């Protein structure tokens, strides 16, 4: 038998090796294992949610988000405070020269007797 014949023989044998094959049989007590899985999958929505939240990737992302939101709020508040501080003197000047700020007609008319 030459090499080519050997190769052809090898391929033919391999391709027909599953002829007459019998079905593999599942391991015993499969139903018991399935029922155990079913009970596991019947966890409440809160149990599932807690499992989801405690996953390291989710917990870390959540924590990072929380820190970022806090930093954003603090920075925003700081810039707002600085803005108010610079605006205030100008507002005071306006108030000083505004006749509405000095008094109202009501104040003149109801001036307390001296």
């Amino acid at each position, binding site marked *: 038998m030459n*090499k080519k014949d*050997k*190769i052809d023989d*090898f*391929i033919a*044998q*391999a*391709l*027909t*090796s*599953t*002829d*007459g*094959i*019998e*079905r*593999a*049989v*599942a*391991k015993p007590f*499969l*139903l018991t*294992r*399935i029922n155990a*899985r*079913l009970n596991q*999958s019947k966890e409440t929505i809160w149990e599932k949610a807690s499992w989801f939240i405690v996953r390291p990737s989710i917990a870390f992302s959540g924590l990072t988000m929380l820190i970022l939101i806090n930093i954003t709020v603090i920075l925003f508040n700081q810039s707002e405070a600085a803005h108010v501080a610079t605006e205030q003197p100008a507002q005071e000047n306006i108030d000083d020269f505004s006749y509405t700020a000095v008094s109202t007609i009501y104040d003149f008319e109801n001036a307390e007797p001296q």
Partner: protein
Amino acid sequence: MNQSEVLVNQLKQGNQSGFTALVDLYQDMVYNTALGIVQNKEDADDIAQEVFVQVYLSVNNFKGESKLSTWIYRITITKALDHEKKKKRKKRFGFIQSLFGGEAEEHRPPVEFEHPGVQLEKKERAAELFKALKKLPDKQRIAFTLHKLEGQSNQEIAEIMNTSLYAVESLMGRAKSNLKKILYSYSSEKISVQ
């Protein structure tokens, strides 16, 4: 009303004995199909459990447009392919982790798969065939597995894979031709060693 229709009705009504009968009837079919695809006994057992959990949870979605066995075959194939993808992803992640100095899972070389139903004198060649089968594209592999391991006809495979008879015939043709090429490379290695 045939047996599978009775089982589906019982399941839809939440009858536990109906589920027990269904598992009893289809467990070997599911296990054998999963085993043919993933070529690992533990994984096939795991997939079989997942399949029946899925059947139990989604039986209300089964409208009876196809045979019950066809529906279960589809679930099995989907689960088996998903399982393979997850395993590959895990392997890739382990490799990346090891590159960064993390503790990766111990890498074991793939063990030659032996299907328990193969006749003793054919085991050696069957192992070569299963090794070659792993290298085929998914659709060709599924069609070939259903035909050879489950003894399904091309028409039944077409229903399971939700495709035409012509497409299945073409898949089978390409699967055989690719397998011959892969087996040729194995044989030339083996024969040159002898």
